[in-house]
């Protein structure tokens, strides 16, 4: 940590005037920035690349280091600062970014979610269309990535990797003891029956849930709705024309699961402790994004297919609920030339392989050689490439605006964190997304 800090050195004060002129230039070129992408010819004081992200610990930190290393290899001459902003998940990063943008001293690029999440940065993001064009990203990225990285008709960001959301992980020995075959669970009701079986046959927690934050429950809602009510209903919900009955039915299932089959301390633990229950064999199932699998890889003697397994969330087979880790491009960029180079790098195979194999996510390009990834991620990549549908996630920026997401989480907080009030939660969710 201290080493990092030494690297933080000064920002781009070097010459306030220089920065100001650059900002002016960038502002002018915002509309139709020609071909200044290539070689970062501006040099001089605009040359330092400053990237903010929130990967401060564990898998994330390792992955970020790998990314920086790969970047240095590719662009040894670019002066750069990768500043990890820790604390509160993404909260501190968001606050720092917001403050920097507000005070008109944007970083070169910052990590964030694309999709409707871009709306919160309306008016302060620049155009990286030239990078997309020059690098041919439109041809190599999945179509959803192409769509979700645009706002107001321009590309605002470049994707780095993708996690999957509709995942159910299980501890093999616990489900075997209970006599449950996870692969047979192809509907939410079958899943609930399986939870009941685990409850009666073993001492283990049927489903571990870490609900100290509301996001895990909102996330579970999205997978359950997708699995139980289907793709159309889920997409209608995101699009702001929810079917109230579908929302209610989802909440009824959730109330049954959360009311009967989760751990006693769910509301005071977070994802990590919850996930620990799987590793230690205290629980049978957990629903999470596939970042949860990162902890399994790091655990000793805990191997894929032997000790833990993966099942697409019941009912959502054939679908891949999307998540993107991307870099967003602020306008008035302090270093437009080198930022373009960095953005081109982010979408490259080198960067995506370096980062994702440690992060436990997969490349957003479909043309990447997956040999360096483990068997689990290779399977994920196949599912990704072959998925019938890739619905955007609800909780991580791609499905709804950050405002709507906050409203949804407020509803979970007040109506659905035990006792579970199906009526109020249904009403709250319908109101929150309805246009």
């Amino acid at each position, binding site marked *: 940590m201290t080493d990092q800090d030494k690297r933080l050195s000064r920002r781009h004060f070097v010459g306030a005037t220089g920065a100001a002129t650059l900002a002016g230039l960038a502002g002018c070129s915002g509309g139709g920035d020609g071909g200044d992408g290539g070689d970062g010819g501006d040099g001089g004081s605009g040359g330092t690349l400053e990237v903010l992200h929130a990967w401060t610990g564990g898998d994330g930190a390792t992955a970020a280091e790998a990314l920086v290393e790969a970047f240095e290899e590719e662009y040894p001459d670019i002066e750069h600062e990768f500043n990890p902003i820790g*604390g*509160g*998940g993404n*909260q501190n990063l*968001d*606050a720092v970014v*917001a403050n920097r*943008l*507000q005070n008109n001293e944007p970083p070169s690029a910052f990590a964030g979610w694309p999709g409707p999440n871009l709306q*919160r*940065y*309306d*008016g*302060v993001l620049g155009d990286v269309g030239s990078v997309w064009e020059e690098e041919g990203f439109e041809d190599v990225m999945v179509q959803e990535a192409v769509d979700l990285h645009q706002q107001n008709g321009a590309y605002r960001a470049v994707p780095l990797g993708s996690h999957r959301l509709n995942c159910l992980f299980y501890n093999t020995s616990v489900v075997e003891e209970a006599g449950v075959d996870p692969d047979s669970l192809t509907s939410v009701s079958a899943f609930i029956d399986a939870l009941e079986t685990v409850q009666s046959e073993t001492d283990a927690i049927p489903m571990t849930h870490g*609900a*100290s*934050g*509301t996001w895990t429950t909102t996330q579970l809602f999205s997978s359950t709705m997708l699995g139980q009510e289907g793709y159309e209903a889920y997409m209608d919900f995101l699009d702001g024309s929810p079917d109230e009955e579908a929302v209610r039915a989802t909440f009824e299932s959730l109330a049954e699961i959360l009311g009967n089959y989760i751990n*006693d*301390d*769910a*509301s*005071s*633990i977070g994802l990590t402790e919850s996930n620990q229950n799987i590793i230690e064999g205290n629980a049978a199932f957990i629903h999470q994004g596939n970042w949860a699998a990162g902890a399994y890889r790091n655990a000793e003697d805990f191997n894929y297919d032997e000790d833990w397994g993966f099942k697409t969330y019941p009912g959502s087979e054939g679908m891949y609920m999307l998540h993107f880790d991307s870099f967003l491009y602020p306008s008035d960029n302090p270093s437009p030339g080198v930022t373009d180079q960095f953005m081109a790098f982010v979408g490259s195979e080198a960067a995506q392989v370096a980062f994702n194999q440690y992060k436990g996510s997969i490349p957003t390009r479909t043309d990447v050689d997956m040999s360096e990834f483990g068997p689990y991620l290779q399977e994920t990549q196949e599912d990704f490439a072959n998925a019938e549908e890739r619905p955007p996630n609800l909780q991580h920026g791609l499905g709804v605006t*950050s*405002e709507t997401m*906050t409203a949804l989480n*407020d509803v979970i*907080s*007040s109506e659905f*964190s*035990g006792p579970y009030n199906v009526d109020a939660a249904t009403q709250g969710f319908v109101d929150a997304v309805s246009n």
Partner: protein
Amino acid sequence: MTRNTDTGDDSGDAVTDGGVTEDPSGSGFSPIAALNDRFGSDFVESSQFWLPPFLLVGLFVYGAIIWNFLISLTDFSGFGNPNYGDLDLEMYTRALAESGFVDAAVNTFILLVGFTLVTLGLGLGLAILVDRNIRFENTFRTIYLLPMSLSFVVTAQFWAWMFNFNNGVINIVTSSLGLGRVDWLGNPDIVLWAVMFALMWQFAGYAMVVYLAGLRAIPNEHYEAAKVDGASTVRMYWRVIIPQLKGSTISASVVLMVFALKAFDFLYSLVGGYRPPNGADILATKMVREAYANLNWAYASAIAIALFLMTLGIVGPYLYYQYNRGNL
């Protein structure tokens, strides 16, 4: 009682406050003399001491509150700057319609009243214990007051651990008593009381110090008289002593309530983020979250005004009370 003072070596225009209307030096109208005439002889000269601090406080405290009120009338959110051209009360109506705001306001009120009462109660108990002519009084007092010297950030760490579901002291105790484990910080019906308990731990020593000062200001004869009347110790305190602690109670309550309104630091540190555990959201946390996590600046300002009015409702009468007693 007029008294001549002069400004010594500072300047030539000696000032008299004799209430003369004509300027004594005869050099025409002097604004300084006029000011001194109006406000008192030392007004101008002493202003070099109190005016700069006063301006600083005026700007940062009162200027900022007025500015905050202005912002709360705009629709300022996201990036950019507030538009002061379009002022309305929309943010206030929005707050009243939002259940999250109402919940936070109710929680704030519960925390305020509950915390103040239990802390005063415990503080009074401690003060009486310590006042019973005990040995090692200093040691006891020092330890009782010790948590008060700690940061909310620090005490939040301690209590997050105390309330830990599996390994915390409190649950070890309750389960060994056969009461089972309780999800103190996770259960929305309990968490506010758990927070209250932790805050009581931190501030009971403060209430003790205030009460102790109050107890020691009571003349010995009152104790003696009660004893002569044959009153039991409990009766003596209840009938004779506690009624005399009204002043201590009032000033301690005000300070404690203000602490409760500021419990933001504690709740933030408990979870390491802007959103406190479900059921423990108070106006102080909601305001900061709306502003710095959601960038709803105007809305946050409106919540801040609500919080300010709550404070004013407590402190206003107190200041008036102190003013009437000549303590200002």
